[in-house]
C-alpha cells in the first residue's frame, strides 16, 4: 500500500525530529519551530509554482491563519493549538477558494501582482481595524494542547512537536498530491497550458486548485507561527514577508519537499548569525547567499540530493507514491 507506506515514513520522520528536539537547546528549538512553520507557507508557494503560478502575496494567507488562530480564544473560547491551527488553515483556504477562480484567469507577472495586491489590501485593512489591534496587532493567548496546559518549562518543546507533526503531515499530503493526477496536470499546465486545454482538461481549474492548496499551507504556517510567537501584527501580510517566502522558495527549488524546510532553517540560521556578528548588514549576507545559490545551484538546494529529476518512466514497476519527494 504505497499511501500507507509513505505515511509510515512521514510518521517516522516526525518521531525522529521530535526526539531530536529533546536534545536541542532552547534557542535552537525556537529557531527550528519558526523555520518549520515558515516552511509551510513556503511549501504553499512551491506547490503554486509547480502548477504555473507565482505568488508575491503569500503573506495574506499567513496573516489570515495567524489572526484566526489568535482570535479563537476570545471569539469562540477555543484554546487548543491543534484546533486553532486547523481553523486558521481552513479560513485561509476558504479565502483562497473565493479568489481562485478570478486569479486563475491570469498568468505570469499579472497573477503574481494580483496576489501582491490582495495581500496589501489586507495589510491596509488590518492596520486600520482597531478590533484586531490596528498596527499594534494582537497578543495571542497561550494555547493548550490536547487538554494540556503549556507551562513555560515545556511549552517550547510541545509546540515544536506540534509544529513538526502538522508540518510532516502537510508535507506528506503535498507528496501525495505531487504524484497524483491533479499534480501531474498542474505540472503540465505550467509547461504548456494551451496544450492541456487542447487535450480537454481545464488549466484554470488546475491553477485554482494549486492556489487553494497554497492558501491552506500558508494559513497553517501562519496559525502555528502566531501561537509560537504569541503575537500577530499586520506585518505578517506585508510585502516584505511575502518576499521572504519567495526568497526561501527560490533557495529551496521545486524538486524536493524536504528542501523547503531545510532552506527555511538555513535562512533563519544565516539571519540569526549575521545579526549577531554583522549587525544591520544581515541583508548583505542574505543577498550574497542567494546569489551563490542562483549562480551555482540554480535548481535550489534541493538539487543537491535530487539532482536528476525522477520521472514516472524511471521506475516502471513502482507506483509514484513510493518515490521520495
Amino acid at each position, binding site marked *: 500500500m*504505497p*499511501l500507507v507506506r509513505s505515511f509510515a515514513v512521514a510518521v517516522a520522520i516526525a518521531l525522529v525530529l521530535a526526539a531530536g528536539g529533546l536534545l536541542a537547546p532552547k534557542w535552537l528549538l525556537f529557531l527550528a519551530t519558526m523555520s518549520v512553520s515558515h516552511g509551510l507557507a513556503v511549501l504553499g508557494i512551491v506547490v503554486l509554482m509547480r502548477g504555473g503560478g507565482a505568488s508575491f502575496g503569500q503573506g495574506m494567507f499567513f496573516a489570515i491563519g495567524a489572526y484566526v488562530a489568535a482570535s479563537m480564544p476570545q471569539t469562540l473560547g477555543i484554546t487548543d493549538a491543534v484546533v486553532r491551527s486547523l481553523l486558521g488553515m481552513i479560513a485561509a483556504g476558504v479565502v483562497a477558494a473565493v479568489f481562485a477562480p478570478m486569479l486563475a484567469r491570469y498568468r505570469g507577472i499579472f497573477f503574481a501582482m494580483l496576489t501582491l495586491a490582495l495581500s496589501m489590501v489586507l495589510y491596509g485593512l488590518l492596520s486600520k481595524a482597531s478590533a484586531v489591534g490596528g498596527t499594534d496587532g494582537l497578543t495571542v493567548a497561550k494555547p493548550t494542547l490536547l487538554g494540556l496546559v503549556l507551562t513555560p518549562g515545556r511549552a517550547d518543546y510541545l509546540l515544536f512537536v506540534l509544529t513538526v507533526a502538522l508540518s510532516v503531515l502537510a508535507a506528506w499530503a503535498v507528496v*501525495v*498530491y505531487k*504524484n*497524483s*493526477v*491533479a*499534480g*501531474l*496536470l498542474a*505540472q*503540465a499546465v505550467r*509547461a*504548456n497550458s*494551451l*496544450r*492541456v*486545454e*487542447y*487535450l*480537454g*482538461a*481545464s488549466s484554470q*481549474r*488546475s491553477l485554482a*486548485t494549486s492556489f487553494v492548496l497554497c492558501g491552506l499551507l500558508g494559513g497553517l504556517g501562519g496559525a502555528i507561527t502566531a501561537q509560537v510567537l504569541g503575537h500577530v501584527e499586520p506585518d505578517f501580510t506585508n510585502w516584505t514577508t511575502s518576499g521572504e517566502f519567495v526568497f526561501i522558495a527560490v533557495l529551496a527549488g521545486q524538486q524536493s519537499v524536504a528542501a523547503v524546510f531545510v532552506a527555511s532553517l538555513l535562512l533563519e540560521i544565516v539571519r540569526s548569525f549575521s545579526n549577531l556578528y554583522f549587525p544591520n548588514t544581515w541583508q548583505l549576507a542574505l543577498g550574497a547567499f542567494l546569489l551563490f545559490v542562483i549562480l551555482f545551484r540554480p535548481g535550489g538546494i534541493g538539487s543537491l540530493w535530487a539532482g536528476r*529529476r525522477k*520521472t*514516472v*518512466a*524511471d521506475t516502471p514497476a513502482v*507506483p*509514484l*507514491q513510493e518515490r521520495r519527494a
Partner: protein
Amino acid sequence: MSAPLLSARGLEKRFGAVVAADAVNIDVPAGQRLSVIGSNGAGKTTFVNMVTGYLKPDAGEIRLDDRDITRFSHRRIAGLGICRSFQIPQLCLELTVLENLLVAVAAAGGHFSLWHPADDAGQRERAESLLRRFGLTNDAARPVVELAGGVRKLLDIALALARRPKLLMLDEPTSGVSADEKFAAMERVMEALEGEAATVLFVEHDMDIVSRFSQRVIAFYSGRVIADGEPAHVLGDAGVIRFVTGGTAR
C-alpha cells in the same frame, strides 16, 4: 443520406486586410481521410484553428454531428471529439514522453483527483499502448526536451489520439521531418490510427504524401476552396497547379 461528421458553412475570417477564410463550405463524412493543401497563407491552418475553437469565425457555422460548435471553447470542442496536433509540436517539454501521455490520458478520462496516482494501472496501460503504437517505447523515460523533431511530431499526434477522437486534425504532420523519413513517419502515423474510428484531416505540403495517404483533397487559395475531390482530380486541376503545387498544367 446521413449528416456529415463535420460541416462548415460559409466560414469567413479576416485579419485586417488579409482574408484567411472566404465563404468556406466543407463537409467531412465520418471515416474519411482527407488532406488540405495550399500555399503559405492560403487559410489551411486558419480553417483548422476555427474548427478546433482557437479562432472564432467572423461569419458562418461549424457543426459536429449536427451540433453547432462555432462558439465553443477549444477545451469543449476537444471534449466533443475533435483533437489536433500542431505544426510546431505543443508538448510539455520538462515532462517525459510517458508523463506527457499520462497527462493526455488523464485529460481524456476527465480525471482530476488530488490523491489518485497519475500512473495507476489503467492509465499507464493506455499510455503505454500509445507508446507502442507510435514506436516510442524506448523514449518513454526521456524528457521531451531531448527528443528530435520527428519524434516530437509523433508524440504530439499520440497525445491527440489519447482521447479516441471522432475527428483528428493533423497540422503538417511531416513538416520538420527529413525528406527520407517523411514516408516512414506518415506510415507510422497511419499504422497507429488503424483500429481507431477517427476521421482524419491533415494539412500537408508534400504532394506525394497527399496522394498516397488521402482519399480526398481540399485545396485552399487566398482563403477560398478552389478544388475539392479525389487526389488525382484535385492535383491535376489547373488552378491547383498554378496556385498550390507551383508546376505548369499539362
